[in-house]
């Protein structure tokens, strides 16, 4: 399910600067951040399940960082991290740092990952998710000055590994639709 890098065709006509087109471009730019935030809010809905906010946020941020970094900018990630910290009752800052580092890693290996097969990306994501969970746990323990149990963090990482294919499937469709819209003459 590797998405080909966004290669623009040669000799593409300049886009018309109509209001509609600008709105369209803004929607494409804003979609990743807003959709992720919306998903997080949905995931935080009070049901009788362990809150999957962490597990939902990670795949979204990783996917958009790898495949559309222009729309998943660090300030947006910062805000998403803040939202996650507020929704999950984690100490302020731990989720932000984790998401920003995840994005930094994703950006660092972005050119490499975009060329890999879906399975390889998934595997890399799993490693990153476990790393992120452990980092979150370490930060929380550090901020609370006592060792909290690590099992919930690992469960969240496992859950996010399992959710990644579903999220990636949907987001790949969306991403392809965006590419088509951008490449249309």
């Amino acid at each position, binding site marked *: 399910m590797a998405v080909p890098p966004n290669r623009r065709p040669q000799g593409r006509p300049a886009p018309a600067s109509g209001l509609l087109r600008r709105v369209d471009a803004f929607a494409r730019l804003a979609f990743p951040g807003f959709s992720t935030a919306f998903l997080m809010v949905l995931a*935080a809905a009070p049901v009788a399940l362990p809150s999957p906010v962490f597990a939902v946020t990670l795949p979204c941020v990783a996917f958009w960082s790898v495949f559309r970094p222009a729309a998943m*900018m660090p300030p947006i990630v910062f805000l998403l991290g803040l939202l996650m910290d*507020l929704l999950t009752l984690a100490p*302020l800052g731990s989720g932000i*740092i984790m998401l*920003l580092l995840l994005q930094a890693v994703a950006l660092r290996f972005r050119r490499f990952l975009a060329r890999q097969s879906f399975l390889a990306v998934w595997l890399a994501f799993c490693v990153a998710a476990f790393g992120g969970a452990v980092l979150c746990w370490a930060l929380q323990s550090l901020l609370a000055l006592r060792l909290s149990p690590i099992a919930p963090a690992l469960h969240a990482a496992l859950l996010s590994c399992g959710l990644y294919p579903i999220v990636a499937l949907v987001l790949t469709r969306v991403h392809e639709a965006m590419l088509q819209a951008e490449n249309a003459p």
Partner: protein
Amino acid sequence: MIRLSIPLRQALARLSLPLMIAAAFGMMLLGKADALLAERLRSHLSDALSPIYAALAEPTAAVRSAVEEVGFLVALREQNATLREENERLRRWHAAALALEAENEMLRRQLNFVPEAAPAFLTARVVADGGGIYARAVLLATGPQHAVRRGQVALDDRGFVGRVTEVGSRSARVLLATDMNSRIPVTLESSRSRAIMSGTNGARPRLAHWPEGVIPAEGERVVTSAEAGAFPAGLPVGTIRLSPQGAPEIELFARLDRLDAVRLFDYGLTGILPPESVARPEPRSRRR
């Protein structure tokens, strides 16, 4: 949008990530320094989000109730099996209680009662239906070590089934109460009147020869009678049902259509033995 030169924009893009990480550390320190800040932010956020969750609550509740419904349906099966088993057990207890009550009644009426000895029984598996000369008979598999005897009473887990009519070395045949040749002395439990239950080859034997002035009531319990010394008194047989023509019939407690094992009770009674099913020609005796 503010127009910036391309190098400046690139520099900003490169700087934004470290800047944000620094801001995150700042946020962490802020959260640590002012513990109430996070709480205040959280309460503002929940205030903002509560309408969304309120809207979500309805479908969530619907889904949850649907899931519970499914779980309930799954449990229902198991519950049903348990209840069925319990019902069976209670039915046995019910029969036992009614028999005890009747016995008690009788004991009260006549003191100096000689109690019956607890009967010995053995359980045999039903291996074949029908066959033989009777229309309603079953074949039991018994061993040579079992002392099966003609005239023993067969009961299933609910009630009276029939009597042993033939005994081989490894099998025994039981004439069921529904056979046309079966005549069982019975007692109507509430009126204590004697009658004969005669089989018709149908599912419900008929009641016959009840005394004048007694009207067998629908639903009345019927038990065996000790009359003629063929059966012990008080074995549960069935209940009276009136046929569409108004004739009293007996709905047996025993499930004769699906017998799988019966208990053979030896009460040591030899009042009237059932007839031999195969009428072997007797060697002709000298004419007197």
